[in-house]
Each structure stands twice: as structure tokens, then as C-alpha cells.
């Protein structure tokens, strides 16, 4: 079935792509520094024709319909290339999470997407208009194409049912043909992939540490081998050591499976270290985007510079952070 096919194919034909995507990304976005208006034309021109794009979001506007109306995301364009890591940085409340929820159609009233398009370019060539999906189609789209890892490592798992059942839920919904034995095997395989003892399928979430819970969430996000994984501050609640372990795990898994990642965080230095490209958000707009290298060496926007300078270096000097040691 498609499941097994995907497993076979994924490592073979997707892994080389990130480099391609990177170079493409540099080409397209390199000249653009202050994004707002200029980036649109460049991005949208070849996007749907090129096969290495996984999601195109155009002119996305999201409002919170409260009094007064809060414009959380304003005319944002975002292109995610297959297999790349796109870092989305910005302070709390700048609209990062809202944008990510918008891409996966998870917005709930009073949040409302007032304008824009989100197109998912499937691996087999179909273009899916995400905003037009309804009911069962939307359900089938979620997790199978785009999976998410959420902010709250502690609360993303249902506290009263076992890990096994929560993993099985994904299979029974999206892969109705799978037998119990196959599901069990796959669940165990997934857990060992993320470095968790496979016997933990028998555990309840409260029996796991925060880091393990987040690993389990990542395993779950991998379950259907999605083409895009949205990670919304996946390491916020964890200490730096566990954080590094999990980030490495994500990088390693991306190497194997070649999924694209939207990585949302307010930790810009970390983003620069792991992302192919970085977009900086402020007050609902993307104020700057570019490759990590560009942002690091040659930030243009005032806000980006401010963000970069707000992290002290290891020697305590502000504005000259050093995060070397381990490259990735």
C-alpha cells in the first residue's frame, strides 16, 4: 500500500533534495531583504511550476474577531520548499502560531482567515487548495500531509489513554487497512526512531518525562510520513540539554525522511543554527527573510538586528553571540 511505498521511496528520492531546495531558496529569496511587497512576485512566479515547493501561502490575513479587531497576521507570503527547514522567528504575540494554525486550518473562532490562499503541492503532483477542504477531506489531509508538534510538551498527549492507543488512533483514522499487528509494529518502530524505549507504548503520558513526551509527539507526527511538519516551539518547555537532544533528533529524522519543517520559535540564534531559511515576524508581518547565513551576517531590518543583539554571547557581551561547538 501507499504506506509501504512511501517508506521505500522517501529516503531514496527525497534526501538529496534539501540541497537543491537550499540553492533554490537562495536564488529566489537572496535579493529580498525587506520582504513585504517585493517578495511576492518572485515567489509566486515559479512556485506552482517548480516541483520542489511543498506549501505556498499567499497574502494570508488572519484576524481575531474581537472588539477591537486584532489583525494577527497581515498579508503574509510564505513558500516552503520540500525538505527544507524554514525558521519562523518573532516575539510572543507576533502571529507566528496563528499563521501556522492557519496553514493547517486549525483556527477557531474568534480567529478568522479573512484573505489569502494556501496551496499544498502534493508529492504525486496534485495541488491541494487547503482552504477549500471541508469535512472528511480536511481530516484526511491533516497529519497525512501536514503534521504538527505543539508548544506544550506536557499537555499535547491525552492523559487518560495509553501511548499505544494514541498512536493507533492515527492509523485507524488514516490507514484503515492496517492490522493490529502492523500497527503495533509501526508504533514500536516509531518510538525507537525517536529514541524512546518501544515498550513505552504501554505507558500513560504522566509516566513519561517532558522530553520523552515531546519525543513521543514527534514519533506521532512522523507516523504517516508527512511532507511537512509544523513545529510550534517544540522545545519551549524543556531545558537546554533536552532541547538540544530533541533538535538533533529532528534534524536526523529530517535527513532520513526528507520532510519539510516550519520551525517556530522566539529563539533566533537557535533558528539560525538549524534552519535553511529564516523569516522574522513582527506584528503580524514578515519583516525580513533570507537564508540563515544572510540573516546572521547581514541583517537588514532594525527589528532583526535588535533580536540578534538581544542574546548575549557566551562571554557575556551583548550582540555578539557565539553558538558554535556543534554544527548542524
Amino acid at each position, binding site marked *: 500500500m501507499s504506506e509501504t511505498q512511501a517508506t521505500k521511496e522517501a529516503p531514496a528520492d527525497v534526501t538529496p533534495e534539501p540541497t537543491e531546495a537550499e540553492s533554490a531558496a537562495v536564488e529566489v529569496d537572496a535579493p529580498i531583504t525587506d520582504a513585504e511587497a517585493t517578495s511576492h512576485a518572485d515567489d509566486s512566479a515559479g512556485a506552482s511550476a517548480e516541483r520542489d515547493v511543498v506549501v505556498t501561502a499567499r497574502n494570508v490575513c488572519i484576524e481575531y474577531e474581537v472588539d477591537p479587531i486584532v489583525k494577527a497576521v497581515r498579508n503574509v507570503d510564505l513558500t516552503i520548499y520540500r525538505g527544507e527547514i524554514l525558521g519562523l522567528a518573532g516575539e510572543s504575540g507576533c502571529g507566528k502560531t496563528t499563521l501556522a494554525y492557519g496553514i493547517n486550518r486549525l483556527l477557531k473562532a474568534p480567529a478568522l482567515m479573512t484573505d489569502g490562499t494556501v496551496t499544498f503541492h502534493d508529492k504525486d503532483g496534485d495541488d491541494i487548495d487547503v482552504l477549500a477542504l471541508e469535512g472528511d477531506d480536511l481530516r*484526511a489531509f491533516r*497529519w*497525512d500531509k501536514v503534521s*504538527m508538534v505543539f508548544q506544550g510538551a506536557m*499537555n499535547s498527549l491525552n*492523559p487518560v489513554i495509553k501511548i499505544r492507543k494514541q498512536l493507533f*488512533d492515527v492509523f485507524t*483514522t*488514516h490507514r484503515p487497512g492496517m492490522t493490529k499487528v502492523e500497527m503495533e509494529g509501526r508504533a514500536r518502530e516509531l518510538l525507537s526512531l525517536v529514541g524512546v524505549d518501544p515498550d513505552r507504548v504501554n505507558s500513560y503520558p504522566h509516566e513519561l518525562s517532558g522530553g520523552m513526551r515531546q519525543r513521543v509527539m514527534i514519533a*506521532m507526527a512522523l507516523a504517516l510520513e508527512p511532507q511537512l511538519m509544523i513545529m510550534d516551539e517544540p522545545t519551549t518547555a524543556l531545558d537546554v540539554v533536552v532541547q538540544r537532544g530533541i533538535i538533533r533528533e529532528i534534524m536526523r529524522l529530517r535527513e532520513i525522511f526528507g520532510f519539510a519543517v516550519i520551525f517556530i520559535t522566539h529563539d533566533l540564534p537557535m533558528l539560525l543554527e538549524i534552519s535553511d531559511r529564516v523569516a522574522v515576524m513582527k506584528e503580524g508581518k514578515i519583516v525580513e527573510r533570507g537564508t540563515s547565513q544572510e540573516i546572521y551576517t547581514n541583517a537588514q531590518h532594525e527589528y532583526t538586528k535588535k533580536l540578534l543583539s538581544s542574546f548575549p554571547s557566551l562571554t557575556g557581551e551583548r550582540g555578539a553571540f557565539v553558538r558554535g561547538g556543534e554544527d548542524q
Partner: protein
Amino acid sequence: MRYIGRRLVIYAVTLWAAISLNFFLPRLLPGDPAAILIAKMSRNGDVTDAQLQSIRRLFGNPEASLWTQYIEYWQQLFRGDLGTSVSFYPTPVTELIGAALPWSIGLVGMATIISFTVGIGLGMFAGWKRGTWVDHIVPSTTLLQSLPYFWVAMVLIYFFSVQNQWFPIIGGYNVFMFNGPEWSWDFVGSVAYHAVLPATTIVISSVGGWLLGMRNMMVSTLGEDFVVTAEAKGLKKRRIMTTYAARNAMLPSIAGFGVALGFVVGGFVVMETVFSYPGIGKLMITAVRGNDYALMQGVFLVITLTVLVAMFITDMIYGLIDPRARQNV
């Protein structure tokens, strides 16, 4: 297993305390059951010395120390002897309670379970549909909750037994067709028929509380991260509503279920009196009216036991559905 063991110990201590209170409280009251019985009997003629002696022996010796009485009380309990009723002399209390208990447990137990299930079900639905027209219906169920049992009972009787003679006014079964409880489908049918109005009374006046509690918990659970995760996983709406949201939202309701049974006891005393239902509540009223201490004590004991057993069962169920409870506590 350790969870059950620990719970059992806690309940054993509670039981001991309840039984001891049940022993000491009546003895702190003024009045002497034996004297009352003797007074009652002497109204119908002289009481002989032999009778006096046997009554004294029956009710225990008031001159003995409280401690000796306490020991004797426990010994009697273990023999299953709760004394003799004064109002139904010489029927033993155990016999009276044994006859009344199934009625109460059957009626109140069933009605409470129905009320709980219906309330939780509707509450789940109302919470799921938050922010829609359903929200406007919720307050009216709370209004029902505030109506007193006896009033609801009388209104029901007025409309469904007096105005339209659809349901019987009183009793637990048709006393003209049956001489006493028996095992036959006809009898079971008669019991069910007689139970409709009393059960409806209990359900009407208690369903609102469950509904509101469940609805509010449901709304707050729906905001939890794991529900959003479930949605992002593309699970079916029904699955999210039951296994992810309701399963967690109902935990406080289940914890409250045992406690609520305590209040239900108070309710059914009134309800059984209105419907002349042959249960524990009516027995208790009779006992209080007749200064029947032994019977009162027995009824209190049984009520305490019932609530304890109900809470124990609730605890077990809670441990079953919330894995965290099994570990801690």
C-alpha cells in the same frame, strides 16, 4: 492492586468511625427506648415483671458502662442483630430494613444512574456545541435543579395521576394484585410502572447539575492542547468528542458522583414519603415519628453503609478511567 488495598484501608477506618458515631449519637439524646416501649405497652394494659425484664434484656442494660455497651453493640452487629423495632414490635430491625432496602436502592440507584448518564451525555453535547443555540437551553436545566423534590413530586402526581390517571399515585407495586413481592414478570412490570413517577422526580431535579458541570468541564477540556492535537491528527469528530474531550471532562463528575449520592439520600426521604414508596426513606420517617431508636439507628447505619459502598465503587471506577489516580493518592 495496591490502589484497591489502600482505598480499602481508608474505607475501613471510615466505616469504624461511622458505626461508632452511630452508636454514640443516640445515646447522647435524651429519652430511653425501653421506657418508651414500656409506656406504649402499658397503654394497652399492665406490663408484667417478666415482660419488663425481657424488654430490658432486649434493649441492653442502661446501667452498664458506655464501654460495655459499645462492645456489646459490636458483638450484636457481627451477629447481624440490630435490635427490635418498637413501632413494628416485635419485628427485628434487620428484617424491616431488608424488606425496604431493595426498593430504595432499585429506585434511587436506577434514577441516579439514569440522571447521571443523561446529564453527562447532554452536557457533553452542550459543551461540544458551545457558543451556539444550545447554550440558551442550559440555564433552564439549572432552574429544574433548584426545584425542591417534594414539589416536583406533587406536580407530577397532580398532572399524571390525578388529572390524567396514567400513573399510580402511591406505592411500589399494585397491592391489590399481589400479596407481597414475588418473582414474576407481572410483578416486575407493576414495579416498573409504579417507579416511573418517583424516578422521573429524581431525574428532573438532579439532571441539571450533572449537565451544567459536564458542559463547563467539556468547554475547558476542549481548550486543552491534546484536543487541538487530536484535531490536527485528523481524527473523526466523534472520536475527539468522546475519547479525547469527554473522557477527560467527566473525571470531576465521576468524583462527585459518590458525594452526590449522600445528598440523594436526603432527597429520597422526601420523595418516598410523597409517593408512599415502601423504601428506606419512608421507614426512616416512621422510625423518627415513633421514637423508634433501634430502627433509626439501623436505618442510619444502612444509609451510611450504602453511601460508603457507593463511594467505594465510584473510587474503583475512577481509578479505572484515570490512570493518574492509580499511582498517586
